[in-house]
C-alpha cells in the first residue's frame, strides 16, 4: 500500500516561497492568481494491508517527523 502525505503550511504562517512563485507567475503573464502556497508531497511504500493500521502508522510518522505541527498541517491519502 502506498501513503501519500501532503504537508502544507498552516493558515497565517508566512510562506515566502509561495509568494515568490506567485510573483513569477505574474511576471509570466498568468493573470488571476489570487495566492500561492507551497508544500511538500511525501510518498511512502508500506507493507501494511489493513487500511486503518496503515493510516495509524502514517499519522504517527507525521506527528513524529514528517510535519512540524507548530507551523504545518498534514493530510494522508492511502492509494
Amino acid at each position: 500500500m502506498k501513503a501519500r502525505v501532503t504537508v502544507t503550511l498552516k493558515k497565517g504562517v508566512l510562506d515566502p516561497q509561495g509568494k515568490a512563485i506567485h510573483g513569477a507567475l505574474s511576471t509570466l503573464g498568468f493573470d488571476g492568481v489570487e495566492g500561492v502556497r507551497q508544500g511538500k508531497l511525501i510518498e511512502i511504500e508500506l507493507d501494511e494491508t489493513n487500511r486503518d493500521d496503515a493510516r495509524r502508522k502514517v499519522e504517527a510518522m507525521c506527528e513524529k517527523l514528517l510535519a512540524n505541527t507548530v507551523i504545518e498541517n498534514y493530510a494522508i491519502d492511502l492509494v
Partner: protein
Amino acid sequence: MKSAIILFPGTNRERDMAAALKRATGNTPQIVWHGDTELPDVDLVVLPGGFSYGDYLRCGAIAANSPVMPEVIAHAEKGGYLLGVCNGFQMLTETGLLPGALMRNANLKFVCRDVHLKVENTQTPFTTAYAPGQVIRVPVAHGDGNYFADSDTLDRLEGEGRVVVRYCDAKGELTGDANPNGSQRNIAGILNEKGNVLGMMPHPEDMTDERQGGLDGLGLFTSIGTAA
C-alpha cells in the same frame, strides 16, 4: 567546566565552538558522534551550527531524531546546560525543548554578515557576563532563521524574560532593517522555561578572538563557565 559538542553529518561549526569554549573556560570539549547513545558526564552540551543531514525535510528535523538525542533531552531535563546555535537552535525547536519554529528567511536569501544583538536578559546562566541592554556584534549565517511562534507563545516568552537576545541596530534600536530574517519581534535567541536551555541563530562562538574581529561573543561562554 566540562562540555560536549554533538557532531552530526553535515555539522560544520563544531571546531569554532570547541575553540570558543577552550578560550572561555580553559577546557577542551569532547566531541560526541550523533550515533552514540551515551553522553559523557558534562555540565554543558552544545548542538553546533551547520547543515545536519543536508537540511533535508526541515532544518534540524532529522538530527532531532538522532540516536544521541534522547540522551541530550535527558541531560536538559536533569537541569544540565544545553546550548543550540543556528542549526542547533533549529534542532531544539524540532525536539520541542524550545517553543516555535525557524522558518525560511522572509526575503528568501541566505544571510551571512555581522548583526547587532541586544542582550535582553542578563539573569540567565548564559548571559551574566553582559550588562542589561548591552549591544553586541556577532555574525549570522543562515537561510532558515525566521523565528515563528503564535502570539500567545511570544507573549509568554517575553513576559517570562525568555527572549534573551534580539536583533537591533548599532544603537540598540529594534528596527525592521536590523532584523536579518523576518523573525517575529526581532527574536534572535530564546530560553526554555527552566532556564537551562538556550537556542539562538547568531554565532557567538565566531566572535571570541580578536582575529575574528572582536570578543563580543566570549561573554556567553564565560557566563556558562561561571554558572557550571
